[in-house]
């Protein structure tokens, strides 16, 4: 299935990727090529076939509600591009999610 330039732009926005015009064109072509290969799956009858989202046949991996030590705040922010007074700092947030 071919993917349109508009769809490429929509995906890039959802994924927070700033793409150049060349990248958009290239992805448009490459993703269309890849997706048309994926379209072979349509031939496979899967009505009533359960989905596999993990192959581990276990359930209920629980943790008891017992505190474990947190990281020192210095370690929490050690890798931060910008931090002040123990806070992470980002460009001003104007919008809500």
């Amino acid at each position, binding site marked *: 299935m071919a993917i349109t330039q508009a769809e490429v732009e*929509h995906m890039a*926005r*959802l994924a*927070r990727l700033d793409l150049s015009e060349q990248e958009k064109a290239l992805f448009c072509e490459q993703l269309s090529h890849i997706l048309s290969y994926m379209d072979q799956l349509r031939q496979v009858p899967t009505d009533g076939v359960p*989905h596999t*989202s*993990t192959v*581990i046949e*276990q*359930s*209920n*991996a*629980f*943790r*008891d*509600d*017992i*505190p*474990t*030590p*947190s*990281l020192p*705040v210095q370690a*929490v*922010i050690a890798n931060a591009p*910008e931090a*002040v*007074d*123990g*806070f*992470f*700092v*980002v*460009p*001003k*947030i*104007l*919008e*809500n*999610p």
Partner: protein
Amino acid sequence: MTYEAVIGVEVHAQLRTATKLFCGCTTTFGLAPNTQCCPVCIGMPGSLPVLNKRAVELAIRAGLALNCTIRLSNRFARKNYFYPDLPKGYQISQYEAPICESGSLDITTNGHAKTVRIRRAHLEEDAGKNLHEGDAATSRVDFNRAGTPLLEIVTEPDLSSPEEVDAYLRALRDILKYLDACDGNMEQGSFRCEPNISVRPAGSSDLGTKVELKNINSFRFVKQALAYEIARQTKVLASGGVIHQETRLWDPEREVTVVMRSKEEAHDYRYFPDPDLLPVEISQEWIQELRQSLPELPAARAKRFVHDYRLPEYDASVLTASKDLADYFEACVRLFPNPKIVSNWVMGELLRELNARGIPAQRSPVSPECLAKLLQLVDEGTISLKIAREIFPELYASGKDPETLVHEKGLTQISDAQVLEQLVEEVMRQHPAQVDQYRRGKEAVLGFFVGQVMKASGGKANPGKVNELLRRKLASDTPSGS
């Protein structure tokens, strides 16, 4: 034309676990920024979530208390979006299959009963907090809250007034507090409410365009914001306008709702099953075990208070609103089996002190035993009711035993006949004119004499005995001066 409001409510209740939903960091409120964080809850590369069993139990308990069906096979899903307070770029939540479904909660507004249907309640993790400071070009992010377990509880659009929403929220909060599932603190954000509201011509069965309200962090604001929004929407519709589907924020300063700035793009959260977590299989045995551990809930308890203790409905509802207070009341009644007197004291003196300091009954410096002893002292006639009321604040402040305090302050009531007789005679001697008046038939003067004797005794004379003695003396003695 008249209009009616149709309201549904989404509540995010922080579950009262010691640790976060997927890691062992603590959930205590108000600590220094980013001090309750680990690789898991700040989404460090390579970290993995492990589900807190207690959070699942609390969700099931809440579901059972809300008459929900508990889903036996659960999966967590990822809700994908970007926001600075969301460390992983996705929130672990439940999507198609919430743990609790199809429940209900009964509320009463102005004596009118209503059943509010609960559509669903699901488990998810909380986000961190973004802090904006004035004109700064930056915002700050604190992940202490990130990963705290939330139960999102969603009603059907069954509510029709701000008062009903208020009643629903209070009833829901009381239940969650009874279950020890949530501390219900709206101001601290542990109990957050987002109503959605639409307005339609009265009697219509079509639903209008709904607006979501956010930034409501007190019960007062809920009522104010809804009242404002109903008026706003009604005005728009009445003047032929249209309501836009949007999210509006309550501005408590200006007491209005304003449109929230939001990403222009349509939301596409791309939910999919989280491959890092296994299915949660809930057995019937587990549900049964949790059902049996449920405490008596507020509505049932209030009913029992009316029936067993013969309390007025008002008293019963006040006393059972919090589990702490109801427990306090019952403990006190066991020691002093006069429910109405205990109720008066708990709702009056005790609550006045507790509320003034925002202290739960559980931590009252005056224990149920202590209050019972005080009431016992009144009952025995050791102190007067008036004195009991007067010393209550001191009792509360000092935490002393009532008997000790009464002794220390020399407040024991004077019931000794000889002492009282002397007092009465002295008062009669000082007020011969009033004695005459009484004897001529003006019995109302008796009150004057009682007051004088009480005053002379420093309030300690037993008023019953004084009364009795005065009547006898005034009647039997010969008129003065004759």
